[in-house]
Each structure stands twice: as structure tokens, then as C-alpha cells.
């Protein structure tokens, strides 16, 4: 028997009235993985995370964290999980340190945890804001406090639901660094994100949810290999005027002396396409082959584009 999975999701169903939000989702996340949960809006990512966190009760199926059942053994699972919610929520009555201390207290941790709280404040660049009221913080700082609250009881499994939504580039980079550090320290990371670039850079394995069902569950490289197309960029020494039919149907755009052709990996050999270009009288001075990125695979699988921002 191998190691207990960090998270096991077993035929999970959840309906909200007529909406079937989760349709038998079934996969597991191993300990120490950096796992990405992707999908368009309304795909069921947050519902799945909320089921895991105990905020939403599944209609059927089973969820466990490190082998403990999320419903019947919630005291264990909630100690093992640190969840960063998607919404920027805070309690306006309290200061940053108080928010962290109360959160630790709910998990039964008192003064003995203060050193860890101090460390979190420093790591999250909040040390100089420890006595600032939550209301007075910027959005990025509130996001960092949320991360601190999720980590205050040192959970082995950290779930981040769209942690970088609406944060500026600099903060996003620093959050990425911090999350990578948590992962390197042995935490299992489950990340939902709209930014496919983020998943591509960080995650080792990815599940893509669409309309409540997992349409893909693979390592990043397997998923990228599923891209059925690649782009061939060709630069000629002369203006490209006409193309034979077999090339015209592959051309995405022609611009002066350059063009981009979309080639099917299973059908179009690059060598034969280059031969056809030469046969058409076009001399080639440069070529570049670009493999599909996660976003392209995502679009193929879900029919939608992600929020590729930077």
C-alpha cells in the first residue's frame, strides 16, 4: 500500500436546485503534490473546494483528507486543511495580529503559536501592519492576511481558491514565490486559478473541470501533449502573395513576407509542409515551431478561454 492520498474525491455529486454543480467528480491528490484545479466560471471548482472545506455538503459521494472523512471526521480534516477563500473577507472589528491569533485559537492554539504568527507576519510582509485594523489594509494586504489565517495552524494541505484574482503583478509574483516555498517545505498545494499561465508555471498535475465534471486529469506535460495542434511561423524573403489550396486551409494569417500555419500533430508532417511551401515558390529564410500552451488545450477541452492576464 502506498502513502495515504492528501485528498480523495470519490464520485462526488452536488446539486443546487436544478443546477447539477458536481457530477460524480472522482480523483485523488497525492501528498506533496502541487495540484491545479482549472475550469471556466461555473465549472464547479469552488463548489468542490467548499465541499472539501465543509462549507458545502455534498449530496452523495465521499471526500477525505489524509484518509479522514470530511463529513464524519471533520475535526481531523479541518486541522489538516488550510483554505484561502476566494472572496476577500475580513472582520472589521480586529487588527491583523488579532485576526491571526483568534484564528489560531479556534484550532486550540494559544500563546505557544505566537512565534509562528510572528513568522507569518514577516513572511507575508505584514509585520509593520500587525496592529493595523483590517479595514485599513489594501486589497493585496487583506489577501495576504487571508493566506496567513489559512496557515496559522500549520496545515499539511493548503487549498488556495483563486488566490491571485484581482491582485497586481508584483503581489502575484510574491504570492507565487511564497506558495512555491510552502510546496518545497512539503505542503500539498491545491490551487484553483483562472490564470492558466499560473497553473502552467506552478502545477505538476492538473484537473480541468467543466460543467461539474472532470474533463481532464493529467500531469502538466501530458496535458500539454494533448494539444492537437502546433503553429509553424514562416518568414520568406519576398511578400507571400498566393498559397496552394493545401496550405491556404492551414494558414491562420499571412502578413507581408510572414505567415502562420496551424498544423495538426497527427496529420501534418512539418517536413512535408515545408516541402509544399518551397514547391509553391516561396523561399524560406526563417521558421519557428510553437507548441500549444495550456490555454490552447484548455480551450479545446472546455470550449472557453481562461483569463490570461499578466
Amino acid at each position, binding site marked *: 500500500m502506498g502513502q495515504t492520498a492528501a485528498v480523495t474525491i470519490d464520485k462526488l455529486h452536488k446539486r443546487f436546485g436544478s443546477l447539477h454543480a458536481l457530477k460524480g467528480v472522482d480523483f485523488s491528490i497525492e501528498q506533496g503534490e502541487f495540484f491545479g484545479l482549472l475550469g471556466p466560471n461555473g465549472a464547479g471548482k469552488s463548489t468542490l473546494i467548499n465541499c472539501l472545506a465543509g462549507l458545502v*455538503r455534498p449530496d452523495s459521494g465521499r471526500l477525505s483528507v489524509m484518509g479522514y472523512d470530511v463529513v464524519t471526521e471533520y*475535526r481531523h480534516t479541518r486541522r489538516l486543511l488550510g483554505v484561502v477563500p476566494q472572496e476577500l473577507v475580513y472582520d472589521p472589528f*480586529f487588527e491583523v495580529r488579532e485576526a491571526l491569533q*483568534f484564528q489560531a485559537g*479556534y484550532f486550540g492554539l494559544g500563546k505557544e503559536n505566537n512565534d509562528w504568527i510572528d513568522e507569518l507576519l514577516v513572511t507575508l510582509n505584514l509585520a509593520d501592519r500587525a496592529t493595523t485594523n483590517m479595514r485599513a489594509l489594501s486589497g493585496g494586504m487583506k489577501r495576504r492576511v487571508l493566506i496567513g489565517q489559512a496557515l496559522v495552524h500549520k496545515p499539511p494541505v493548503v487549498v488556495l481558491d483563486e488566490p491571485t484574482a484581482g491582485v497586481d503583478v508584483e503581489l502575484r509574483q510574491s504570492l507565487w514565490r511564497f506558495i512555491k516555498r510552502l510546496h518545497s517545505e512539503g505542503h500539498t498545494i491545491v490551487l484553483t486559478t483562472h490564470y492558466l499561465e499560473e497553473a502552467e508555471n506552478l502545477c505538476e498535475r492538473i484537473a480541468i473541470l467543466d460543467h461539474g465534471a472532470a474533463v481532464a486529469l493529467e500531469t502538466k506535460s501530458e496535458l500539454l501533449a494533448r494539444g492537437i495542434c502546433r503553429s509553424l511561423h514562416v518568414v520568406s524573403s519576398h511578400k507571400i502573395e498566393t498559397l496552394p489550396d493545401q496550405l491556404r486551409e492551414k494558414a491562420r494569417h499571412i502578413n507581408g513576407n510572414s505567415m502562420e500555419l496551424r498544423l495538426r500533430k497527427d496529420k501534418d508532417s512539418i517536413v512535408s509542409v515545408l516541402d509544399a511551401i518551397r514547391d509553391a515558390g516561396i523561399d524560406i529564410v526563417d521558421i519557428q515551431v510553437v507548441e500549444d500552451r495550456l490555454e490552447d488545450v484548455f480551450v479545446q477541452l472546455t470550449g472557453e478561454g481562461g483569463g490570461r492576464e499578466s
Partner: protein
Amino acid sequence: MYGVYTLFYKEVVRFWKVAFQTVLAPVITALLYLLVFSHVLEGRVRVFEGVNYTAFLIPGLMMMSVIQNAFANSSSSLIQSKVTGNIVFLLLTPLSHLELFVGYVAAAVVRGFTVGVGVFLLAVLYVKVPVHSIAVIIGFALLSSGVMAVMGMIAGIWAEKFDQLAAFQNFIIMPLSFLSGVFYSIHSLPPFWQTLSHLNPFFYMIDGFRYGFFGQSDVAIEISFLVVVAAVFVLSVMTLALLKSGYKLRV
């Protein structure tokens, strides 16, 4: 245990940070009632034998303040957490439904009790009030604030918007507390209204509490005690069932 203590402490700190609004303001309001009503009605209203109206009024105003503030604490904290979304911080923790219940109720009892003591301390500067049984006074103050803290939890769990909570407060809590004998002895009412008053659980809270001061009451102290204990019990069972089911908290 430390988890439930933290919730209790957080709830106490929460109301104490705005003590002007949550403690001082209701104390001042009760004192204004005392000044106005005692000035207008002293000598005109017959209450208990040998008890002047102003002294009679003080336990009633204390209990009214206890009732309203215990209710306000648990209900407002819950609705604010729900509306702003920070209730998630509690729902993500290993705290059980019983621990959530104890934390919220205990803090609301502390607020109700604090306001009640505040009213008493300032009121006795104005008029002397006898104390017949300190145990009965404290017992009824704790039990009654417990009833209202639990009722506040039900309202806070049920309400989805602030105006729903305000409706609960204005159309249920206020009328029941004003018509419970705060300002009068129900023996001065016509028979129909006397009968109706006996259906109001707040009446028993105030009547039993008043017995602790004067050794006299409209109904037997044992009956008031049983009604208030039964109210705490029934409402607590209901609230625990709501919390356990996740009603309006966990989807």
C-alpha cells in the same frame, strides 16, 4: 476547550471595542426611561404593597436592557459575519455546533449582564432599591440573558439581511419586552390583558427578577423559574439542531 474560549473571548472583545454603543448607550437609555417615567408616574401607579413606583421600575428596566442587549449581541454578530462573509473563518475550524453555540451564547450573556449591572449601579444613585435575594437576581439575569442570547442566535442564523433582523427585533422582541410588565404590575391590567401577559415568556423573566429585589411578584417565583428554564431548554435544543444541520450556514 481553548477553541470555544477563543470564540467567547473574541465575541466579548468585539462588543467591548464599541462599548459606547453596546454598553453605555443602553445604560443611558434605561436611565432616561427611569427619569421620565418616575417623574410622571410616581404616586399615580399602584404596584406592590410598600414599594414605590421608581424602585419598582428599576428591576424592570434592568431586565429590559438585559433582554435587548443579550439578543442584540448574538444576533448582530452572526448577521454581520454572514453578510460580510467572515463567518467562513469559523466554519473552516474544527469547532463543533455545540462549541459555536456556547461561545456565542456565553458572550451575549456577558453583554446582557454587563448592561444590567450598569443600569443598576447608576439607578441606585437615584433611588434606593432593596435586595431580597441576590441569588434569585443573578439567577434570573443569567437565565433570561441566556434565553435572549439563544433567541438572538436563531434570529441571526435565520436572517439573511439586516432588515430581516430589524423586523425580528422591532416586531417581536420590542413588543414582548415592553408588554411584559417592565413599567407596571400586570395586576393593574384588565383581566383580558392579564391573561394575555401570562402567555408572554418575557413577563416571567421580569417578574422572577423583580422577586429577587422585593420578595413579591405577580406569579409564584417557582412558576417563573420553570418557564424561563423551559424557554432556555427548548430554544437551545432548536438552535443546536439548526447549527448541526448547517441551516443557512453550510449550503
